[in-house]
């Protein structure tokens, strides 16, 4: 019986089974491939409800598999670029969907066979030359689905690779342009309160940001708005607002904040040239008068040369008006600087647009960039001789240029030599009580202790109260050149201090300033309070008038 059974099935095997296997294979491949393509299309069309979506909230929670520049900074709440994460998740969804459908297909077939009664199952077993087409179809469908999924993965990887390549080039170009701008124009932003200097301000999204329990209440802040995985040219905030993705494009359009204390930065901070000039020295050394006359002169020179000038904040505006009153002779005494809070007086100098020729206008624009912010820092003199108080003067750290004010009447050798014969002059001078050397050494020691490289900074040494000093006949003929002033200081016993200054700083120049004499107010005249400022501005490539050098 067995032999007859086998002989009977041989023709069936040849004429039925093999064609069925061939047709089932072809049909299975087509069905599996087609079904995979449909599933992939459904995932890409967003029609799969259980699909994983990388949201802005997920980004803020750290779902992106990339490392941030610093661990302390969190990811901003914004939608990432599709190819930064969602493309991979979509591929995973496609694979899962196809895998699930394939498993379900096998399971339902097996379950169907299991649930049949014994008679049917026996009939299926006996008719295997025909029913073998079912597993062949299922296997072919699985292989067809796998082939299509592999194709989708390869094509997506190629597209993703090309997008990443192009995106990376664009990111490097935009970030590089931003950084080059900041290096060329020296335009890192500085905070008016904590004096932190940063190339990357925090920006506020102007969109609507309702409270979202469980997340950062300040999710409107973008701490790193540079191009990257959250967008190459534009970024979409979690609120849906589109934001520009570079500091140069964001400044002026979005309000900027200090990344440390989240205080509002001045308008233009981050792209405008940022010149920070702290004036330090002992109490009553004449720092505030030096700043008053220097600032009023600086504004006058800029305006005389057609440059738009404005105070950036109310405090600077009020202080500038006070200074003008003193310089014009309407007021005699300047308010003493508060010891508690160092003062930053900020003046914004715009870019001229009055060039006679197109070439000249272009040159003005290139030289001026996006304007200049000049900050003059004034702090109470007592603090400079106090190590603890001086340690809090962070504004000294970020400055490329500094002014050290020396009251000549506080120099012991000057006092010993001239005081007996000129008591009236010394009484009028109201000489600084703290030592010149202490006020310099304590301050610079603290700055260097914080790791600041003073050798890359410029120091202008201003010998103040020259209008009084010249009433002493032996000092009346003091020359205006830096060498003359240095020699005078060295002659009066400050040679060791001068050596230390020259050892610590990149460049040191010496000036004398007669700040209470109205006749000495004016641009680029030796002996004016503006002279040291002009030199320091010049080293920061700021020219307010025609070059006189």
């Amino acid at each position, binding site marked *: 019986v067995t032999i007859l059974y086998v002989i009977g099935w041989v023709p069936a095997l040849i004429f039925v089974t093999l064609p069925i296997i061939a*047709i089932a294979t072809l049909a299975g491949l087509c069905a599996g491939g087609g079904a995979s*393509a449909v599933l992939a299309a459904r995932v890409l*069309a967003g029609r799969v409800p259980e699909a994983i979506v990388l949201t802005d909230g997920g980004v803020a929670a750290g779902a992106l598999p990339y490392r941030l520049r610093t661990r302390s900074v969190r990811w901003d709440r914004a939608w990432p670029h599709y190819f930064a994460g969602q493309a991979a998740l*979509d591929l995973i969804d496609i694979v899962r969907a196809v895998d699930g459908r394939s498993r379900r297909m096998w399971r339902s077939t097996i379950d169907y066979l299991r649930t049949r009664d014994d008679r049917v199952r026996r009939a299926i077993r006996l008719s295997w030359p025909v029913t073998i087409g079912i597993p062949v179809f299922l296997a072919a469908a699985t292989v067809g689905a796998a082939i299509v999924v592999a*194709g989708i993965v390869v094509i997506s990887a190629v597209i993703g690779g090309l*997008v990443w390549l192009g995106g990376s080039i664009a990111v490097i170009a935009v970030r590089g342009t931003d950084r080059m701008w900041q290096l060329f124009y020296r335009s890192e932003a500085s905070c008016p309160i904590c004096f932190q200097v940063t190339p990357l301000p925090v920006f506020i999204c102007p969109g609507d940001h309702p409270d979202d329990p469980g997340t950062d209440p300040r999710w409107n802040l973008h701490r790193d708005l540079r191009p990257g995985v959250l967008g190459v040219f534009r970024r*979409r905030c979690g609120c*849906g607002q589109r934001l520009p993705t570079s500091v140069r494009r964001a400044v002026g359009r979005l309000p900027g904040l200090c990344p440390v204390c989240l205080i509002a930065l001045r308008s233009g901070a981050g792209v405008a040239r940022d010149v920070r000039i702290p004036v330090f020295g002992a109490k009553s050394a004449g720092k505030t008068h030096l700043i008053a006359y220097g600032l009023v002169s600086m504004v006058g020179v800029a305006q005389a040369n057609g440059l738009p000038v404005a105070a950036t904040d109310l405090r600077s505006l009020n202080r500038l008006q006070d200074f003008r009153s003193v310089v014009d002779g309407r007021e005699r005494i300047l308010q003493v600087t508060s010891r508690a809070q160092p003062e930053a007086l900020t003046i914004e100098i715009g870019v001229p647009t009055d060039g006679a020729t197109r070439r000249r206008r272009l040159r003005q624009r290139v030289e001026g960039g996006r304007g200049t912010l000049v900050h003059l820092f004034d702090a109470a003199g007592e603090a400079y001789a106090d190590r603890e108080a001086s340690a809090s003067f962070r504004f000294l750290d970020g400055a490329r240029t500094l002014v050290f004010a020396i009251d000549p009447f506080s120099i012991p050798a000057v006092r010993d030599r001239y005081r007996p014969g000129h008591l009236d002059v010394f009484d009028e001078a109201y000489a600084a009580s703290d030592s010149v050397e202490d006020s310099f050494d304590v301050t610079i020691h603290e700055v260097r202790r914080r790791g600041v490289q003073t050798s890359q900074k410029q120091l202008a040494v201003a010998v103040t109260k020259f209008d009084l000093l010249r009433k002493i006949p032996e000092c009346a003929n003091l020359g205006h050149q830096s060498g003359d002033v240095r020699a005078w200081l060295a002659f009066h016993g400050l040679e060791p201090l001068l050596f230390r200054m020259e050892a610590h700083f990149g460049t040191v120049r010496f000036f004398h300033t007669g700040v209470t004499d109205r006749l000495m107010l004016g641009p680029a005249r030796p002996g004016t309070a503006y002279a040291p400022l002009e030199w320091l501005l010049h080293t920061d490539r700021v020219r307010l008038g025609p070059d006189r050098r």
Partner: protein
Amino acid sequence: MTRTDVPPSYRNGRALIAAALTSALIGCGLWSATAGIPTDILAWCERIATLGWFWTW
């Protein structure tokens, strides 16, 4: 835009992938047509259906 929506960049990225897949499919179809593969498959099916494969085997 509601919180459950996806941004346009996602839709654009998916459209790009879909376009690339469609292009690849059309490209494969055109290439196989040029190479005569559909004709071969049809001929093969015909031989199976008429058992021609058996007589010429």
